[in-house]
């Protein structure tokens, strides 16, 4: 597929994530929208890695491994996202325990 389609698909997913962050007040939904944005970037990285592989393969070398780096970056992004989710959800649970709500508007002064 043309790489442009992947670029536009990723942009659309990313912008939906941004819109979700801007329009929702539930902290968990905001967090899920951040995951959505991370996944949009992952998809684009994989598409670009396959584009680079194609360019290298068409240049002549059959056993090329061009584009491997992009897929490993995606792997590391997933690792970081998993760590981020565990800490972030712990923070949200603590916040719920203190103020009995997940509404981010209660936290606009970072104290209560």
């Amino acid at each position, binding site marked *: 597929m043309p790489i442009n389609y992947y670029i536009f698909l990723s942009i659309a*997913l990313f912008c939906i994530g941004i819109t979700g962050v*801007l329009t929702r007040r539930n902290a*968990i939904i905001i967090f899920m929208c951040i995951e959505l944005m991370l996944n949009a970037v*992952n998809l684009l990285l*994989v598409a670009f890695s396959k584009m680079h592989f194609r360019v290298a393969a068409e240049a002549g070398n059959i056993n090329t491994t061009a584009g491997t*780096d992009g*897929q490993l970056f995606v792997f590391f992004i997933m690792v970081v996202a998993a760590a981020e989710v565990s800490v972030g*959800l712990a923070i949200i*649970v603590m916040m719920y325990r203190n103020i009995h709500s997940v509404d981010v508007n209660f936290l606009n002064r970072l104290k209560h």
Partner: protein
Amino acid sequence: MNITQILFWLLSVMALFGAMMVITSKNPVYSVLWLILTFFSISGHYILLNAQFLAIVNIIVYAGAIMVLFLFVIMLMNLNKNTEPQKHRWVKFIGAIAGGCLLLVLVAALRNTEVKGQSALLNQGNIGLIQNLGKELFSTYVVPFEISSILFLSAMVGAVVIGRKE
């Protein structure tokens, strides 16, 4: 239009529809379920790009572990449609406009990029297989791999410290 293109469009529509439903659902549990659909369709894209390792990791880590964690926390807090905080209608409208403007700017900026003639290789090429990725991961990227294990350890300790009762 061959089967690959049909699958591409189907998965794209599924991903975008799921993402839209995530941010429009009133009930947080439905949002999580729609997000799982989005992640599955992104995994389908990975399979289409022959990145099989990432497709499986995406399903196991994202749709499996992370989304179960989200669902678990939502059910623990007993969130539903009635407790869902709502922003004012105008604020929602402005947020949607802002997101749409970003979409417009990015699409307009990238419409005529240099990569226009390029295309991603579908269902061919073996760089996405575990053999190649594993070799690269344990030779070139072995230091970041080990550092990420320390990151996981610190995240685990952090989650336990934050989550314990005072």
